[in-house]
């Protein structure tokens, strides 16, 4: 009973013409089109509409000539180049610089990509209860963007985005099994700070309680600032600074500031906003 079938709607006809109608409806529409001249005539009408549209549009376009592509393409290339130059680009594997470096999450990485993983893990000497002033080295081994000393120092430290995306912060808490973090109680901190080339990835973040003893994230911020100054003054190798801060920053702090306990001024050092 061919005549009893319903005709195809304009919308379905359009979608069919452009191959965007989903199965199983598509099969039914194709079968109908085989049978129904009326619908095929409508389809032909749409095709004619397209043809006429294109012809008219071509002549409209001809009335407004566009400049040749070469100039704009060169301009784009130039601005892409300068954007790349500003970006701390050129991440590369620096495993050779750190013989102790071990690939973090090697299994996961192997699934994701075959080569050149930059994430470096330092399995610390201590196995701390997390979270605390030092991260759990298994969860937060540290990860860097591999950028040069020069690149680190051309960008003001404050300009390095320190804001951790909410979703990532949530996962950090999840990883540390903190079910419902109290607002203003933690800072989701970088192990290696962005100003020192640290990466905004799970492996480089951990929740630091604001109230946890004297070794607070503020003290660590002060150390990071100090290390960065040394790096940018050419007195310290960037790779060394990264490694030191990732290994045991408290020991490093003691060494650099020649003190057993944090300097009072550093305890008040305010740079980052708490996680809310």
């Amino acid at each position, binding site marked *: 009973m061919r005549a009893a079938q319903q005709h195809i709607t*304009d*919308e379905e*006809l*359009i*979608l069919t013409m*452009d191959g*965007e109608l989903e199965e199983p409806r598509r099969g039914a529409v194709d079968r109908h089109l085989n049978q129904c001249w009326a619908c095929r005539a409508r389809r032909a*009408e*749409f095709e*004619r*509409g*397209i043809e*006429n*549209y*294109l*012809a*008219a*549009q071509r*002549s*409209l*376009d*001809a*009335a*407004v000539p*566009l*400049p040749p*592509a070469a100039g*704009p*393409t060169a*301009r*784009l290339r130039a*601005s*892409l*180049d300068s*954007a*790349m*130059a500003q*970006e701390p*680009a*050129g*991440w*590369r*594997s620096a495993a050779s610089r750190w013989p102790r470096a071990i690939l973090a999450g090697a299994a996961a*990485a192997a699934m*994701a*990509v075959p*080569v*050149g*993983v*930059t*994430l470096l893990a330092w399995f610390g000497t201590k196995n701390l209860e997390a979270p605390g002033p030092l991260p759990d080295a298994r969860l937060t081994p540290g*990860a860097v*963007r*591999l950028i*040069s000393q020069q690149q680190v120092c051309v960008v003001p430290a404050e300009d390095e985005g320190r804001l951790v995306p909410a979703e*990532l912060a949530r996962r950090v808490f999840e990883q540390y099994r903190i079910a419902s973090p109290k607002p203003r109680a933690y800072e989701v901190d970088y192990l290696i700070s962005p100003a020192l080339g640290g*990466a*905004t*990835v*799970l492996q480089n973040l951990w929740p630091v309680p604001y109230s946890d003893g004297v070794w607070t994230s503020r003290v660590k911020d002060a150390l990071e600032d100090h290390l960065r100054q040394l790096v940018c003054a050419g007195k310290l190798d960037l790779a060394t600074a990264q490694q030191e801060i990732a290994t045991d920053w408290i020991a490093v702090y003691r060494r650099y500031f020649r003190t057993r306990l944090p300097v009072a001024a550093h305890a008040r050092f305010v740079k980052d906003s708490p996680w809310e």
Partner: protein
Amino acid sequence: MADNAWIQSVRLARGPATASAACPEQEEVVHLFGELRVPLLRYLHGLGLPVCDCEDVAQDAFLALLRHLRAGKPRDHLPAWVFRVSRNLALKCIQQTSAQRCLDEDCANAPDRAANPEEQAAHSQRERTTRAVIAALAPHDRQCLQLRAAGLSYRAIAGVLDVSLGSVVACVSRALSRIARATSQEK
């Protein structure tokens, strides 16, 4: 959900060791620019932006595309992404236009070249009819046609214009039948 940042760091790790070497995303952006520039400029011009401003918007959009790719964001439907971003830039630009030009001064001083009248007269009756129908279409319908002519799928167009798939298909079918009907009445 994969950790995007992690993927990013891993993905970028495969990049060249030196900063000066060309990066693959950069080439991809330039390549896509070559493919999309003309339809994109036509589309932006259709929104009411002078050609020269369209060029600036396109530049900004493709620069944003580089950041998008470098950040490891989703890479499917990149043409639709470019159209969408450009459209937003263009609309912002048009809104603030008279008070304070969003783009360069030089641009304002370079008027679009108008077609000469003789050239226009050379068109066939059918073409003139079609042009009249196109001119009479609702701006939204005209944009749908233009984006479809640029090769975007209906789904992608729906994303660019922030409307439902159904409404995109409806406006294209409406516009095409109008054009077909108008031109079949003459001959």
